């Protein structure tokens, strides 16, 4: 029994080197759009204001803007080894990325706050919208991380 997983080499049956960016993009897409469909489900299931306060949607919107901001700058731009300087240069890219990550973390924390402050502590009869908001933001956040760090820019050259 011992060592029978050693013969199982998954990294060799698929050529990960060439396909890595594609797989990361698809995984990020699955995470991001699953997140949005979760919140659509909660919104159509509980349309009333007392079950699901409509202002809670702002959290997911901020997470989406953060997703776009994080992925709009390349890693090479931040490290400063890209060919063109861009309009603001390396410092601008760093500040842009900093604000993007702050919005991403902020929306994730805010969704936890909504779940606990808006549903769990108040002991509402329906907790599902709070859980949906939390999972939406978690999925978008991790989708952004996968899209940002799962891809390698060596394949672009």
């Amino acid at each position, binding site marked *: 029994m011992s060592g029978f997983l050693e013969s199982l080499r998954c990294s060799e049956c698929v050529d990960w080197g060439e396909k890595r960016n594609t797989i990361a*993009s*698809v995984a990020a*897409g699955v995470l991001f*759009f*699953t997140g949005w*469909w979760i919140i*659509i*489900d909660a919104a159509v299931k509980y349309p009333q204001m007392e079950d699901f306060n409509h202002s809670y949607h702002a959290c997911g919107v901020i997470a989406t803007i953060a997703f776009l901001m994080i992925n709009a700058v390349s890693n090479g731009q931040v490290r400063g080894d890209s060919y063109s300087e861009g309009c603001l240069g390396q410092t601008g890219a760093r500040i842009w990325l900093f604000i993007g990550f702050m919005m991403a973390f902020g929306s994730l924390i805010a969704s936890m706050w909504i779940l606990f402050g808006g549903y769990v502590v108040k002991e509402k009869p329906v907790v599902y919208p709070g859980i949906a908001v939390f999972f939406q933001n978690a999925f978008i956040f991790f989708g952004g991380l996968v*899209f940002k760090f799962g891809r390698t820019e060596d394949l*672009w050259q």
Partner: protein
Amino acid sequence: MAGVKALVALSFSGAIGLTFLMLGCALEYYGVYWPLFVLIFYFICPIPHFIAKRVGDDSDAASSACRELAYFFTTGIVVSAFGFPIILARVEAIKWGACGLVLAGNAVIFLTILGFFLVFGRGDDFSWEQW
């Protein structure tokens, strides 16, 4: 000749997928035609790929940012096609059995579209006028 065989096989599986979709709508027990809106997702799912192919330069790079964005949006369309009937079943607009049939049809149709691009997307000398 191999291209023709692949084309026939692909159109067969596409017809199977559309049959699943229509069964989910038109069976007398279900009889609700809301799931037909997933046809929109079928039609728009190759569009990001076309845009990326036209916009992106034909360099020898293994990948490009434009193509990866196209993969991202294509995945989003596919996920939406699976999410839409589930939402319809959740709000009891359609029955769960119909939702299952539509999901099966989705899987077959998207595998067909993927197969179409794998078979015909590679060859650069391929053109419709050859037949």
